[in-house]
C-alpha cells in the first residue's frame, strides 16, 4: 500500500473543504495525481468526512491497486494517493453503503462509470446497505442514470457490457435497496467528441416508481406528466414500476445501531422490524433525433400529491430542454472529464446552452485545470449557444497498453 510506484516525486495537489470532494477524488484516481484535502468541515458541528464519503473512499480502495489513504484523527484532513484502477474482473465485489447514507446510489454510480472505462479489467460491483435508488434532493434516480447518463458515454464509443441492475428499489431517507453495476467496456483512450447539433426532441420516455405505496400514485404521476408533455410531443411513454417496501430492524439507520448489534444482525433491535424506503417519484428522459438526452427527476416530498410530482417533473424536463445543448446538465461533468481524458492534442467540442454553465461547471473546470493542467475554452456560438472546447490530455488508460 504505497504510492511510490505511481508517482514518487509528484507533490500532492492541495484542496480545501469538502466541496466537490467526489469529483476531485475521481480526477485524482484517473490521472494518478495525489490529493491533499484539508479543512474538511472544519467549522461544522460534525467535523470531518461523512459516512458516505468514507464509504466512497473504501469503494475506490477496493477497485484500485496500491491506493494510499491517510485521514487525520478528526477526519478534517485527507491524503489520497491513487493506485491503478484494476477493477474486479470475475470476482464479484459487494460494497456496503452505510445505512444512514442520505445520498442516492447515483453518488457512487457516477464515480464507478467514470472510472470503469479506464480500468484494467471489467467492473462488477453490487451496492448494498443504505442504497437509495430513487431521486434525492442532491442526486438523481438510478433510472435517470441508466437511461440518460449512460447514453452520454455512447458518444465516446463506450457502449458494450454496461448494465445497471436495480435489484431492490428503495427510497429515501433511509434506503435499503440493492443495485448491481456491470461495466465491461474498457478503452485505451476515449473517442474525441464533436457535437454541434442537439437535434429536436423526438420522444420522451420515463419511469415512475413507487415503493411501499399504492401503484395508483404511479398512474397519477404519469397522467399529470403526460398532461403537460403531450401538448408538445405525442410520443410520450412513462413506464410504471411498483415494488414493496423493505423490512428492516427498528433501529435501522440509527448511529451506532449496527455496532450495538455486534455482528448479530438477525435479532437486531430485539427482532422488531419496520418498513423503510417508502415513497414514489418519477424520472423523465427526452431524447432528440441526434441522440442527446435531457432528463428530469422528481421525488415526492412529505404529503405531496402524486399529480404535483408528475407535473413538477414534466416542467423540469421542459426547462432542461429549454436550456438545450448537446449534453443535458446531468451528464455535463462526465463529458468534460471524458474529453480531457481523450487523445492528446485533439480538440473536442460540444455546444451547450448558456444556462448550463453555472457555478458547478466553473468549479469543475477549475478542478480539471488543477488536476489535468488543461483548460476548458468557452466561446459564443450560433443562436445564443456556447461552444465549449477541450483539448485532450491523452491520459487514457494506464492499465491498458493496447486498446
Amino acid at each position, binding site marked *: 500500500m504505497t504510492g511510490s510506484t505511481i508517482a514518487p516525486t509528484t507533490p500532492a495537489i492541495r484542496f480545501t473543504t469538502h466541496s466537490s470532494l467526489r469529483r476531485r477524488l475521481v480526477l485524482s484516481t484517473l490521472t494518478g495525481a495525489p490529493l491533499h484535502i484539508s479543512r474538511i468541515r472544519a467549522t461544522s458541528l460534525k467535523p470531518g468526512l461523512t459516512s458516505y464519503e468514507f464509504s466512497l473512499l473504501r469503494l475506490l480502495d477496493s477497485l484500485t491497486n496500491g491506493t494510499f489513504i491517510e485521514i487525520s484523527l478528526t477526519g478534517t484532513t485527507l491524503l489520497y494517493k491513487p493506485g491503478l484502477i484494476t477493477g474486479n474482473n470475475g470476482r464479484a465485489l459487494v460494497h456496503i453503503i452505510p445505512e444512514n447514507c442520505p445520498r442516492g446510489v447515483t453518488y457512487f454510480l457516477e464515480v464507478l462509470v467514470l472510472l470503469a472505462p479506464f480500468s484494467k479489467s471489467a467492473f462488477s460491483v453490487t451496492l448494498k446497505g443504505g442504497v437509495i435508488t430513487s431521486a434525492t434532493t442532491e442526486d438523481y434516480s438510478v433510472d435517470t442514470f441508466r437511461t440518460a447518463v449512460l447514453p452520454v458515454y455512447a458518444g465516446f464509443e463506450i457502449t458494450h457490457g*454496461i448494465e445497471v*441492475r436495480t435489484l431492490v428499489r428503495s427510497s429515501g431517507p433511509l434506503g435499503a435497496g440493492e443495485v448491481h453495476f456491470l461495466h465491461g467496456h474498457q478503452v485505451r483512450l476515449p473517442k474525441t467528441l464533436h457535437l454541434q447539433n442537439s437535434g429536436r426532441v423526438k420522444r420522451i420516455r420515463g*419511469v415512475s416508481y413507487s415503493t411501499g405505496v399504492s401503484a395508483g400514485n404511479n398512474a397519477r404521476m404519469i397522467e399529470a406528466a403526460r*398532461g403537460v408533455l403531450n401538448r408538445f410531443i405525442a410520443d410520450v411513454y412513462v413506464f410504471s414500476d411498483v415494488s414493496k417496501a423493505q423490512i428492516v430492524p427498528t433501529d435501522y439507520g440509527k448511529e451506532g445501531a449496527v455496532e450495538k448489534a455486534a455482528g448479530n444482525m438477525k435479532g437486531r433491535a430485539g427482532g422488531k422490524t419496520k418498513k423503510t424506503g417508502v415513497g414514489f417519484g418519477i424520472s423523465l428522459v427526452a431524447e432528440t433525433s441526434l441522440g442527446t438526452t435531457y432528463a428530469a427527476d422528481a421525488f415526492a416530498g412529505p404529503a405531496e400529491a402524486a399529480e404535483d410530482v408528475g407535473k413538477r417533473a414534466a416542467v423540469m424536463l421542459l426547462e432542461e430542454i429549454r436550456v438545450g445543448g448537446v449534453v443535458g446538465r446531468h451528464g455535463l461533468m462526465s463529458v468534460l472529464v471524458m474529453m480531457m481524458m481523450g487523445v492528446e492534442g485533439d480538440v473536442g467540442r460540444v455546444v451547450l446552452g448558456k444556462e448550463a454553465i453555472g457555478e458547478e461547471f466553473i468549479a469543475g473546470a477549475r478542478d480539471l485545470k488543477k488536476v489535468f493542467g488543461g483548460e476548458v475554452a468557452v466561446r459564443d456560438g450560433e443562436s445564443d449557444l456556447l461552444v465549449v472546447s477541450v483539448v485532450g490530455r491523452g491520459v487514457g488508460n494506464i492499465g491498458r497498453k493496447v486498446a
Partner: protein
Amino acid sequence: MPEKKRKREIGSRNKSDVDKMDVFRRHFESQFAPLEGAQKIPSSKKHKALPGKTEEALSDQEWEGIPGVEDGGLVGDVPVVIEFDARKDLPRSVSKAPRSELKSFMSSKPPLPTSSTTPIPPKSEKCSDDEEDPRSEAEMLKNDLALQRLLRESHLLDSTSGKATGKNRLRALESRIQALGGKDITIQKNMPMAIRKGITAAREKRELKRRKNAKEAGIVLEKDTTRKKTSKKRQDRGGFRPSIGRFKGGALVLSKRDVMDIEGRSGLGSGGGRKGSKKHGKIKG
C-alpha cells in the same frame, strides 16, 4: 342604447327580458321586413347552443374580432370563453407502449439510441395499419400470393366459363399438390403400350400445333421444357471417347477446365457468362 342593453343583459332578469323582446321581434318580422338593428340581440335559441358560462359575459358591439360568424348566428356577439386544461389534451385511451419498447427501456442495459430507433418504425407501421392504410407489408404479401395462385389456376375457370365447380376445385387442389412436389394421381397407371404411345403422340401433336399457331399469330409462348436437351458437345463426338478430357498419344490429357470440374471449382473468381464462353472457345481451339 348599447350601454343600456348591456346593463340589462348582465342583470339577473336578462333572460326573460330578452325572451320578450324576441317575441315582439318575431311578430314584427312576420309582418314587415326583418329588423337590422334587432338582429344583434341574442335570442334564447342562440344561447342554447352555448355553454352556460358565456351567457354572463355578454357584450355585443365592442368586439368584432371574429368575422363571419354573424351569418352563422351562433357566437355573433358573445366573447368566446376558452377554458384551458392541459389534461384535456390527453388522448382518452392512452395507448400502451409496445412490449419491445418496454423491454428495451426497462432492461438493465442503457437504452442505446441505435437500438431505440429500430422499434419505432414497426410501431408507426402498426398504427397506420390500424387506422388508415390497410395495405401493410403482410397483407400485401398475402394479396400477392392470392393473385399468383389465381393466375396459375385461371385456365380451370376458363374451361368452365367462370364457374367454380367441385371438379375444378379438386383440379386446383391437385395442381397445388403437384406444385409442391406431389405426384399426379389423375394419371392412369396401367394402359396398353400402343394406347399410351398414341396419347403421348397426340399430346405432342397438339402442343406442336399450338406453338405453330402461336408463332403465326405472333404470340410469345413459354419455353418448351418438355423436350429433353441433349448436349451438342456430346452429340458431335464420334467413336469412343473418355467422359472427361481427350485421349492423345496414349495419354489422357486434361485441360484446366476439366481439372476444375473434377475439383468442383467453377472458374477463376466469379466469372460471368461471357467469361465462361470465352474459356469454352479456348479449349475448343
